[in-house]
């Protein structure tokens, strides 16, 4: 009546299944957790100019930068948040003041700002966005366009309290 709890065969089988399934996260406990805070991207703050004004649109427009701003943890949309946007466009370099502008999120936490067409600069067609108002931790994003002929670009923020 010897009951071997752990022999070589069961060890291999259980160990193997642990390796296969344990790593997948399939059996991770369900968590009532919302989205994680967005982390700043490398190079996101390059050519940032603090305090760019809120504008109807940047320059002549023709290109749309849009996205959402939500709160970390519960994912609630954040209204009235100021998002600053800049890029190298057909109307100026990133460093130029007139390439910068800001806009506010609506009641759904959505922002949308028209700006001149973004063109490739420093090797990639990309834009820059900043949340820098201080109520939440500052975040700098640097999304890259799938193609330089795209006429819109999205970036999404999940903010955590400062």
């Amino acid at each position: 009546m010897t009951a071997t709890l752990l022999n070589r065969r069961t060890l291999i089988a259980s160990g193997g299944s642990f390796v296969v399934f344990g790593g997948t996260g399939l059996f991770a406990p369900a968590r009532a957790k919302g989205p994680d805070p967005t982390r700043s991207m490398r190079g996101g703050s390059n050519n940032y100019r603090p305090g760019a004004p809120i504008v109807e649109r940047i320059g002549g427009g023709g290109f749309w930068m849009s996205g959402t701003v939500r709160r970390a943890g519960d994912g609630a949309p954040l209204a009235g948040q100021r998002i600053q946007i800049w890029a190298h466009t057909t109307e100026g370099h990133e460093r130029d003041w007139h390439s910068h502008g800001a806009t506010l999120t609506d009641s759904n936490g959505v922002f949308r700002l028209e700006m001149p067409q973004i063109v490739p600069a420093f090797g990639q067609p990309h834009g820059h966005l900043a949340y820098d108002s201080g109520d939440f931790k500052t975040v700098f994003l640097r999304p890259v366009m799938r193609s330089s002929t795209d006429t819109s670009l999205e970036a999404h923020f999940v903010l955590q309290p400062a």
Partner: protein
Amino acid sequence: MGRVRAVLIWAALATVLAVPILAAAASPLLAWRDPVYIGAGFAGIVAMAILLLQPLFARGSLPGLAAPRGRRVHRWTGGALVAAVVLHVAGLWITSPPDVIDALLFVSPTPFSYLGVIAMWALFATALLATLRRPLRLRPRSWRIGHTSLGAVIVTGSVIHALLIEGTMEVMSKAVLCGLVVVVTVRVMADLLGWRRHRAR
């Protein structure tokens, strides 16, 4: 016959070097860049063109520039290559200092920046090694191994750097130039390091 051959070789080389530069000069991106940024870009293209010439000069492969003369020219164009890279980086720095600082510190979001910076340091090291060759009394074999290894780093880094960039260079002409740089470099290195037996010429 030899003369016709020489003319053809030089004409082919001139075409291979001129086409990417002319194609870049027709890039629509130029309209939205200031002169300093445009100059920086072209300094990079010229550097890539010199990179194709360097092994040919070193090997003495070009008509009229056989062994000792080719080597002498190789030294001068090597200096020009350093100058072109310095202008490239300086122009980019003036255009957008934070992007260049990120690249130099290896914290840039773009992988091609790292490769460009690695190639740049390998180039500077090569130039330093070349100036110190006599004072340090480097043995020919050590010199050759050091110089060609650094050359391999320069070529690999520069070619991938250029290919990954979406810039003023036209895609096809860029790919052809980069491909030629790699092929010529590998061939000449194989010859000079004795991987391949010299054919009777």
